């Protein structure tokens, strides 16, 4: 039994294919005006990494401040700005576009056998909107930041702060449209551009996950947009729609904001789940258990996700009736997520498991997302939520699902498809080390925060009672380790661009149309339109392919 499934071509004779989407055209303009979904994906990857680094630095500042109970590193107002910008950048400029805009953009057309997404110009527009949003965020930071929290809760954001709410709101508004257009593009592509034979139920589960996330992007984000418009009007004109003194209701903002922001967390996690379906299958050499269940549960998460938003508002003044209804519905939405975890576990069972880096990240995902998800159920119970809300328990919960879950899935995906995108393998040993370091660092950072939350430490506070210091120190220590864990991939992945081993078409011996074409792919993806004649994750088909294939690279 081999300990790795990696199968690379003979390195002494292997070459990156001369004609590919990177070498096709040269010059900055050919990249900035491209319609090629793969180039746009790479543009996104670079921009997202840039903003992730900024968001990560801000996280470092937060953890540094929280080393001591007093506000000794920065003033309280500054701390408020730091965690707000951290949230805004990480949510809107990193997590929401991460997998869809990079991996989704790159892979979906190839996975369905198409030449490009349905609307390439809209795809490029999406990226430009993202960049404009990002520039506005940088402008906001340069001109003093905003300190309302990424949730812009009224009436604080409308009546009580003098900071850059408008520019941040505008940035989020524009970035929101970037997201809407990406989702719109994916939905249209998946419906209309599948190659002959590619029925819905032969699609890789990656596509199903993106389809579900795209529905949320298209239907949810506009409500965020109008919420921001109302904040802007309230701040400039002062009409009173959120001002109790003028007969308005601050909760109206929260209803509109969370109507998007709860589905937003599913926008963030679903594509990651799509990645996990692919990696778990490949590294257990087994088709995903219960394909239909996983596919439908993705859509179920999307649908149910629209009905639970007020669980972010249990203590804000909504009616007891609303608390009851939303609490019950929140219990319901956990079910499809759990179905996926069960199905992945059953995929592993009796699979031929190997532990390459994407699989390590996937294991990390499964464990950490389960913990994060279950704590979400605790919070969905309104009784517990009253005690735990606005404490570090919440912070721990969402970092477990978003960082332990989503970010790990993103890294799993980047490593898994890195050979396809660049034609080169990343260095396995150091990447496995980075994965383990990340896992350790993550747990050390965020597990103490669950305890801190139950003990009563409030979130968004720069100072805290001294009895919480020990756990905070653990958390900061973990954050340092986590930082190393995230820095390493940036370094070795860049290194691999020049020095990585040549990957060939299918280093993972994976199924899926993307692994049947060259690495990096041609601009038009396929020389002739493929005809899909087998189910997804059909490893027998792959065996037959290899038997008849003539190996050639270059």
């Amino acid at each position, binding site marked *: 039994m081999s300990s790795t499934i990696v199968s690379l071509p003979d390195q002494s004779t292997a070459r990156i294919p001369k004609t590919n989407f990177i070498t096709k055209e040269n010059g900055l303009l050919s990249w900035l005006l491209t319609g090629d979904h793969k180039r746009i994906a790479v543009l996104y990857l670079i921009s997202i990494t840039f903003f992730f680094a900024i968001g990560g630095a801000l996280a470092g500042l937060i953890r540094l401040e929280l080393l001591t109970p007093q506000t000794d590193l920065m003033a309280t107002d500054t701390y408020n700005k730091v965690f707000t910008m951290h949230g805004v950048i990480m949510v809107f400029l990193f997590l929401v576009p991460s997998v869809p805009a990079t991996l989704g953009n790159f892979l979906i057309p190839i996975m369905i056998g198409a030449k490009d*997404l349905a*609307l390439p110009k809209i795809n490029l527009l999406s990226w430009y909107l993202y960049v404009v949003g990002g520039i506005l965020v940088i402008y906001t930071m340069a001109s003093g930041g905003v300190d309302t929290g990424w949730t812009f809760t009224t009436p604080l954001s409308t009546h009580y702060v003098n900071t850059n709410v408008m520019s941040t709101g505008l940035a989020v508004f524009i970035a929101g449209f970037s997201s809407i257009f990406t989702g719109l593009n994916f939905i249209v592509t998946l419906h209309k*551009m599948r190659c002959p034979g590619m029925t819905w139920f032969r699609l890789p589960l990656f596509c199903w996950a993106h389809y579900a996330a795209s529905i949320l992007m298209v*239907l949810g984000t506009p409500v965020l947009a109008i919420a921001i418009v109302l904040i802007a*009007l309230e701040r400039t004109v002062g009409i*009173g729609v959120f001002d109790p003194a*003028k007969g*308005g209701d601050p909760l*109206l903002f929260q209803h509109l904001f969370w109507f998007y922001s709860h589905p937003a967390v599913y926008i963030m996690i679903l594509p990651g789940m799509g990645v996990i379906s692919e990696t778990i299958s490949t590294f257990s050499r087994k088709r995903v258990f219960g394909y239909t269940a996983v596919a439908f549960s993705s859509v179920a998460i999307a649908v149910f996700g629209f009905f639970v938003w007020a669980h972010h508002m249990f203590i804000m003044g909504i009616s007891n009736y609303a608390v009851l209804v939303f609490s019950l519905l929140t219990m319901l939405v956990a079910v499809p997520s759990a179905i996926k975890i069960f199905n992945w576990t059953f995929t592993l069972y009796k699979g031929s498991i190997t532990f390459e880096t994407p699989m390590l990240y996937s294991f990390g995902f499964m464990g950490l997302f389960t913990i994060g998800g279950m704590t979400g159920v605790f919070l969905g119970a309104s009784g517990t939520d009253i005690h735990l809300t606005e404490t570090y328990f919440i912070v721990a919960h969402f970092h477990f699902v978003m960082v332990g879950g989503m970010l790990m899935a993103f890294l799993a995906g980047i490593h898994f498809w890195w050979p396809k995108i660049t034609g080169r393998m990343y260095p396995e040993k150091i990447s496995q080390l980075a994965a383990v370091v990340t896992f350790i660092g993550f747990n050390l950072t965020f597990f103490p925060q669950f305890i801190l939350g139950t003990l009563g430490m409030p979130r968004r506070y720069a100072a805290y009672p001294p009895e919480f210091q020990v756990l905070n120190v653990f958390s900061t220590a973990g954050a340092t380790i986590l930082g190393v864990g995230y820095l390493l991939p940036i370094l070795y992945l860049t290194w691999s661009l020049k020095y990585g081993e040549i990957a060939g078409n299918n280093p993972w011996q994976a199924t899926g149309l993307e692994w049947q074409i060259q690495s990096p792919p041609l601009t*038009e993806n396929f020389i002739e339109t493929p005809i899909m004649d087998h189910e997804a994750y059909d490893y027998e088909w792959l065996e037959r392919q290899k038997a008849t294939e003539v190996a050639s690279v270059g």
Partner: protein
Amino acid sequence: MSDSPAIANGAVAADHHEHPAYQRHHFHSVEQQADTTNFAMWLFLLTEIMFFGGLFTAYLIFRNWYYPAFVEASHQLNIFWGTANTAVLISSSFTMAMGVWSAEMRRKGTLVLCLVLTFILGLIFLGIKTIEYSEKIEKHHVPGFHYSLQSFTNPASDPEIYKEYHDKPMALDMARHTELYFFLYFAMTGMHALHMIIGIAILGFMILRARAGAYTTGHVTFVENFGLYWHFVDIIWIFLFPLLYLISRHQ
């Protein structure tokens, strides 16, 4: 695909290497392209309905909370202009639908006429809106800009409206809530008008292209998809009109 108008009219059939100039390379047929862009426009309209949804939610809440204020404030809107605008917009939807039909039937002259009529009707709508808005500005009913409660605390000071409705003077706190009504009025009709302006601008572009024959050779998707947008804007107004103008005109 033999029932496509392209073939019916004897145009060159698209084969593997030749395709009409307007077919993008990632599509394998014009039908796929038309289908795709049509679906994309529908999805865009979904985002629009959710965008306006937030405003409708706000409206329903505050109307429920401050009904008397909303009633009296809505009397300030001129029902003649409102009804006229509704008729104008419905007519423009009709002319737009006829425009799409003309494109499908390849009647360039009729198409241009319909688009021009839609354009003019759109401008008339905006013109009437301008009249209405200037009335509001004159009477200081613009929230946040020296908003005046005079017409509501002392309705008799507004003879034309008072003659019709004989509103009772409102208590000060309820009168203040009329500002919320007018905020929603301006936000919703303003957002609607913004969509009209964008639509009219695109119509202008379309008229020029239509005159050049771009839409009457079998490639009607642009006109069709714009039609969808235009009808959607009409539907928003179909709801704005009763919600804003017709809250209660009886006494």
